[in-house]
């Protein structure tokens, strides 16, 4: 019977396939960006060498010595060793990603739930200053790290309390925390940098050459990957994770289905705060000083990473893997531009354009598959 109102259960492939496709988009963008910078670096270095050889040949001719034939520009470009596609570039970029990447794990959860956290940059500064402050007072590294983490978690809890108890929308609540945390960081550090003995935090976590060498990348990068795995499992395999998606997708439904929305938000923002705390500790490891003015505007990098990775600011969508790729894209854009010698002002414009482009392309792609 061809009943026209008969519901059909099938219109698109199963969710898992779609999730995979969604994640592949940002990955493809990342690969393209890396290859693009590699090509740019190759051309630039080749041309530099060509110019150098030409000038040397001209110089020797003038001084009467016989000069060998100068290879063509194209030959120079082809035969030059690529300085961008090296293990060191990847290690350095990985290290640069760690802070934003770890904070992006917390942000992913918050964005999925339909919220936003503008306080990330300030909380990173606050927790890195806190860690430095503890170390300066003679605390061993372990407790200093724990102090940083807990302070981050506390900030998240405060955000959640404002959102659930005072009923302030996340944008405003975390904007408040953005100011409070930055101010507190400056207060603790007395408006200067805190010089502190970093111990192994400075020498082992975000190093260029990991020790032992079989680690391949620094322990900081491993921490980020491990955290990503934990958050991914939390979102996929626990009821908390599912409730986070449900709240972002349709909060009224979640409430009607008996989900304790306020409690989930409390847990969610606290966990995200712990992530931000960890990002702050990593920031300290990189700088080895507690700088209360660090990570200015980092919240926007973090949000951009999540959104590039497929997160939707209206909630219900987002992926840990995508956010990680998004963070890498942001880092590679910076490192690549520096490497090729693009001035900072152009860099900023490029990054801005990439964010808009990524989201626009994602929207078009989704529309065509739906």
């Amino acid at each position, binding site marked *: *019977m061809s*009943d*026209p*109102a*008969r*519901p*059909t*259960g*099938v*219109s*698109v492939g*199963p*969710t*898992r396939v*779609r999730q995979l496709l969604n994640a592949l988009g940002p990955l493809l963008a990342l690969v393209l960006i890396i290859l693009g910078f590699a090509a740019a670096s190759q051309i630039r270095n080749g041309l530099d060498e060509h110019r150098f050889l030409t000038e040397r040949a001209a110089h020797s001719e003038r001084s009467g010595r016989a000069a060998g034939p100068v290879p063509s520009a194209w030959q120079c470009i082809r035969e030059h060793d690529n300085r961008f596609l090296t293990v060191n570039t990847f290690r350095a970029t990985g290290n640069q990603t760690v802070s934003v990447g770890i904070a992006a794990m917390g942000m992913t959860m918050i964005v999925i739930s339909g919220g936003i956290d503008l306080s990330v940059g300030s909380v990173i500064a606050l927790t890195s200053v806190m860690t430095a402050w503890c170390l300066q007072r003679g605390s061993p590294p372990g407790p200093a790290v724990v102090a940083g983490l807990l302070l981050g978690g506390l900030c998240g809890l405060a955000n959640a309390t404002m959102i659930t108890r005072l009923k302030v929308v996340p944008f405003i609540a975390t904007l408040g925390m953005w100011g409070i945390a930055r101010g507190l960081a400056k207060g603790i550090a007395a408006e200067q940098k805190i010089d502190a003995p970093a111990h192994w935090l400075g020498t082992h976590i975000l190093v260029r050459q990991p020790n032992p060498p079989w680690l391949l990348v620094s322990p900081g990068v491993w921490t980020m990957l491990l955290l990503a795995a934990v958050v991914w499992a939390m979102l996929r*395999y*626990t*009821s*908390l994770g*599912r*409730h986070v*998606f*449900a709240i*972002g*997708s*349709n909060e*009224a*439904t*979640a*409430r*009607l*289905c*008996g*989900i*304790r929305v306020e409690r989930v938000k409390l847990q969610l923002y606290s966990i995200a705060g712990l992530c931000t705390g960890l990002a702050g500790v990593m920031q300290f490891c990189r700088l080895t000083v507690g700088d209360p003015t660090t990570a200015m505007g980092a919240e926007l990098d973090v949000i951009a990473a999540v959104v590039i990775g497929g997160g939707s600011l209206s*909630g*219900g*969508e987002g992926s840990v893997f995508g956010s990680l790729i998004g963070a890498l894209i942001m880092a590679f854009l910076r490192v690549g531009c520096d490497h090729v010698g693009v001035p900072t002002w152009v860099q900023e414009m490029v990054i801005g354009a990439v964010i808009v482009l990524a989201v626009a392309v994602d929207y078009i792609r989704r529309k065509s598959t*739906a």
Partner: protein
Amino acid sequence: MSASSDDPRLRMIGVRKRFGATVALDGVDLLVQPGEVHALIGENGAGKSTLMKILSGAIAPDEGRMYLDGQAYRPVSPLDARRRGIAMIYQELNLAPHLTVEENVMLGIEETRWGLVLRRGPMRQRVLAALAELHHPDIRPDVRAGDLSIGARQLIEVARALVTDAGIIVMDEPTSSLSQEDTAHLFELIRRLRGRGVSIVYISHFLEEVQQVADGFTVLRDGRVTGTGMVSQTGAGRIIEMMVGRGLDEMFPRVDHHVGGVVLELDDLCGEPLPRHVGLRLCRGEILGLFGLVGAGRTELLRAIFGLAPVQSGRITVAVAAPTLTTDDGATPSRRLSQGVGMLSEDRKAEGLALPMSLADNITLSRLNAVGRWGFLNLSRQRQAARRWIDRLDIRTRGPQQTAWDLSGGNQQKVALARLLHQDADILLLDEPTRGIDVGAKVQVYRLMGELAAEGRAILFVSSYLPELLGVCDRIAVMRRGRLIDVRGASEWSEQDMMAAATGGGA
């Protein structure tokens, strides 16, 4: 499950609830026996949904007591109600569109290991069993709910109630977007559940359905119980009287009006994705009804006409000022407004009104230059204009400065209508203008529509409520899956014909 055999499954006594100025429930009693299908009947806005939200713990009553199987029952949250064995199937779809079917069905009642890790296997089994019981093993549990058709989504809601071991299942208009086949399956399922001793509260205003499936009934009108009894011992006419509280002529006041020349013509209109190939003519002084199930494309049609939804192909011709029909492309709402077309949104709260703004602002918003000059508003003239419409439409308010928040649904709807009148629209596209307003306000809206038609305005009236279409319209068109199935004079339609045309079930 029951404490003693003679206790009713559910007893609600003297339940009262107010929302601001509106009394939604005024001392309602409800009695449901174990294994009974109890119909809760009433017009939109009679208080059925509010009563069920109280039962399910979504809102708390101001007064009244409730007993489940003889034990006092006072749910503090939906979760609490669910634990006490009450499952709700809400009328407005309550799915999380980003989650899969399985995730939606198990939402809030996930099985976990150590209270943390989800047990996916057993949950999958329960979901599959529920879908099989609904005769829909074709719905795959890992499809996103947002990708399903409206009818399938409604079945997911039913599945949600099935996976819990509920003692009471409340179904709020469960068939409103189901096909006849699925409706039959649902009725069969209801009988099976009743056989197992499950009590079902069945909310509907389709009397035929109630007569097919229900044992006892309670009728609500304006927040009060106006009748209760056994369906088999009560005639349909008696039940309608209890619902409406007045005779049918009083319900649908006729105002004489004469149909004139064509003012709006649709030619093979296709939207994105709905409607499909719709051709229709609307005349001056005519009330043209538009019926169809949810998802039939009625709202989409109105929005396409008004320039709010994209038009894929076809032609819309508006001829109010010019004597001859002229073609135009690329309509926008502002263009339509200047052509004398006005639209009333079905979603009063989200789209139709700016709730935080004053009545005066809301009424004059679409034609502010009538109450000002050079972009400046003359506030006293704005208030005067608003006051005029408040009087004409009998809007119960403290004055034009009151915000739209504070009004009852019926008065809010009149404010939305007043805007169209202030705008002096000649073609009125009304999308569910009587949804969620009380009977008295409905009668006023019907009379107003008749008066407007008598002034020579053309009205396209979308409704899901068959009696009002039959009572008010000159002609009625029925849509199904985006297509216009049939247009006839109102006297040539019966409720059965219209349902059959809308569902494709054959006459």
